[in-house]
């Protein structure tokens, strides 16, 4: 072992000040955007029911915090349930699809067609079929998440690095060993690509479902406050939606870093 090798092998720990420098640009971007928004409302004296100022939105958020919080939890629950359902169905389906060429050719066109249907168009139908409860919302989330999860998992399973396939061959692994020890773990980074794409779609799906035939949730809050010209409250709900989406995305990214620290480097 040479000295350079040992140095190379040491884990790189970023220094604290370097980390701060990394977070500075996004924070600056948000601050600048809010400042610009504020400036526009002040300079052009925009009516608050057309474009409320950041201060009014902040007030709405504080004054209606209980209402907003309850509705955030409703949307969060629908999002997570639908997302979970999409994983539970999508991953096994990807396994089946990649297991045989025949099945792939049978199932893929169907999936593509299903995905081509605009989900917004399905939302009212789901109300007709499933009523006004939570289930049609969860189901719409499932519909939007399902496709990216199946496609990315299937792609991961069928693109195992050639040298690892060869390694398996040289050890004469049987199908199950190859799958368990090589193909499945090798597919996990791709799975996370699909999951991260799906989670951002999931929140959108939940809101669309709440636009039609809902009595709670952030999507409902936007429609209701818009109807009563309480634009500040609608903005507050939209901001919460954005925050929800971003938090879920980074949560997934953190889970990925924890479980798949090797992703993207080999």
């Amino acid at each position, binding site marked *: 072992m040479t000295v350079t090798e040992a140095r190379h092998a040491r884990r790189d720990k970023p220094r604290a000040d370097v980390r701060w420098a990394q977070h500075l640009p996004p924070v600056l971007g948000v601050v600048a955007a809010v400042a610009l928004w504020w400036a526009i409302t002040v300079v052009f004296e925009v009516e608050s029911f057309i474009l409320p100022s950041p201060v009014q939105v902040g007030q709405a958020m504080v004054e209606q915090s209980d209402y907003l919080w309850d509705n955030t939890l409703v949307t969060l629950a629908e999002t997570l349930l639908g997302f979970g359902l999409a994983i539970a169905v999508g991953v096994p389906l990807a396994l089946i699809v990649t297991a045989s060429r025949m099945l792939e050719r049978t199932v893929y066109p169907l999936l593509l067609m299903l995905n081509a249907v605009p989900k917004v168009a399905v939302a009212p139908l789901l109300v007709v079929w499933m009523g006004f409860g939570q289930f049609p919302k969860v189901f719409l989330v499932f519909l939007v998440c399902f496709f990216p999860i199946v496609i990315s998992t299937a792609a991961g399973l069928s693109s195992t690095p050639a040298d690892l396939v*060869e390694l398996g061959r040289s050890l004469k692994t049987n199908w199950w060993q190859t799958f368990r020890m090589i193909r499945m773990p090798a597919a996990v980074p791709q799975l996370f690509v699909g999951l991260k794409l799906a989670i951002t779609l999931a929140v959108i799906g939940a809101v669309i479902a709440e636009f039609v035939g809902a009595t709670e949730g952030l999507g409902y809050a936007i429609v209701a406050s818009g109807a009563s010209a309480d634009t500040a409250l609608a903005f507050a709900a939209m901001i919460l939606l954005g925050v929800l989406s971003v938090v879920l995305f980074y949560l997934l990214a953190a889970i990925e870093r924890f479980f798949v620290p090797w992703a993207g480097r080999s």
Partner: protein
Amino acid sequence: MIGIRNVSQIFRTRAGDVEALRDVSLEVADGEFVAIVGRSGCGKSTLLRLVAGLQSATSGEITVAGTPINGPRRDVGFMFQRPALLPWRSVVDNVLLPTQVFKLDQRDARTRAHELLDLVGLTGFEKRLPHELSGGMQQRVSLCRALIQQPRVLLMDEPFSALDALTRADLTVELQRLQMKHASTVLFVTHSVDEAVLLADRVVVLSPRPGRLREIVEIGIARPRSLGHDGHSAELGELRARLHDLLMTPEEVAR
């Protein structure tokens, strides 16, 4: 230990047949280290893959320990040009992979894995993931993995060719040390004359298109060998020059 008899290999491609190997015969004795050198396209890697059972020969017969090869075998270890480590497994778990595939006793295997890692200077790195290691260290892990199943025959396909020159030299010295300790039967494919001369008992020179056995050069120099200033640099230099000439001068091909 290894018997290669009249082996020919023809690849059928869309552009026509490609003759990769023509009538190659070679016997490798138990505990012997044989290097195969040749220019690109001489079929040296193909020959190794045939012995590994990763491909089957168009004609001819290959035996290991007296039994014909008809697929990958547990008593034949293979080390690839690239480390081919599982990126999600720690160093020690990568070494253990073959023993899990073969369902060997894990407690014994673990002890042996630590011994092997110690032998190549990787003690303290057992729990690291491959991406945290340098290329040379990764290839050392790969060597340990090839050795853990205690193969009778170790096949190495240009194992150091993806490394920088100095790391390469390090690993060559280390492999020589290992070989002196446990003389195992090794078939070592390389395009480096230096590696061949330092490591092998015999060097097999293949000539390209189609790959044929051109000459076998005995390296009768006592180990440990080195390319530095020591006793047998003159002999080594002589053999290097000879192998170099064999590789550089084209042989008349009877077609």
